[in-house]
């Protein structure tokens, strides 16, 4: 009986540590304090590593009410290109396709390529709807197999 108690305690201890780490790693409690509802005007570039520079899309001075790389991507997309996204990830929202490239029903897909963003040439470290951008920032979306 005491051995069973020790086993249960051991399982509880290791799982308490693991779940604490997972909660910290996924930033679960950070979600409540982030305010993205600021109006900003920024620049956005959409690049396709598989297609080359000729297909690069550049949009200057795009205004969005959601000050994130996702917000500026959606704001610039109006009448220009399509965007699909998914929230089926513990890391938060991620972009599945832009302008017909990526994972969507009608999309073309390049082997091993994903959509990644950078802000002022710094790679994104959180989900695209959790990164705050500021006026005149340069947001780059890149369809790439380097991540």
């Amino acid at each position, binding site marked *: 009986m005491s*051995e*069973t108690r*020790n*086993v249960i*305690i*051991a*399982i509880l201890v*290791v*799982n308490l*540590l*693991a*779940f604490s*780490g*997972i909660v910290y*790693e*996924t930033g679960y409690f950070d979600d409540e304090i982030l305010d993205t509802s600021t109006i900003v005007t920024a620049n956005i570039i959409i690049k396709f590593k598989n297609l080359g520079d000729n297909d690069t899309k550049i949009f200057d001075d795009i205004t969005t009410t959601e000050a994130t790389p996702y917000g500026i991507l959606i704001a610039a997309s109006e009448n220009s290109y399509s965007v699909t996204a998914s929230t*089926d*990830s*513990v*890391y938060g929202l991620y972009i599945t396709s832009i302008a017909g490239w990526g994972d969507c029903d009608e999309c073309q897909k390049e*082997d*091993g390529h994903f959509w990644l963003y950078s802000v002022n040439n710094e790679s994104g470290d959180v989900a695209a709807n959790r990164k705050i951008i500021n006026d005149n920032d340069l947001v780059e979306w890149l369809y790439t*197999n*380097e*991540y």
Partner: protein
Amino acid sequence: MSLDIVVVTNNRISNLSTGILLFVIGFGGRIMLHDYPNFETVMVSIFLASMLLSLNMSFVITISIITFSDMYLGYFGTSKIILFTYSGFLLVSLITSKLKNQIKGDYNSNTVYKFTASGIIFAGVYDVWTNFGVFLLSYELTFENLILVYILGIPFMIYHLLSSIVTFSLLGFPLYYLFTTTNKNEYKIPTIKEMES
């Protein structure tokens, strides 16, 4: 052992049933947890298969789980990285089979810690190997890029290690004892005198 007592020990569950159950846990868990990257039951199923079954059988279970789940999820044959993911799981299976005598233990807290440590180590081995595959397949082959791939992989690796702690302790340890619990029956062999009387 007493000369006139024979202890007959039978595994509660046959090897075939064990294999099928582990396949279901690995395959089903991967499908159900697909929305949670790096949180999967494949690794622990492969670990248990290697602990409980022969090396050949555990290889069959390993390949079956990842092949069928990849086919179900639409990943099968879509990227060369499966060369590394498949061989990574087979590597885990091979190492577990070779070290199973050191890993297994009695029903006590030390064995819980050994299983947990195994989960951390095997997730680490798998991630180091598959990140190397990402480097080989997707990057220009320079030392700087090799370091970059491993640095970029750190957040995913940490999450995988943490999730392995959960699966190996909450799933692996209890299932191991469920599968290995034995029915011990003692048969008394009568002596010649008893037979004559």
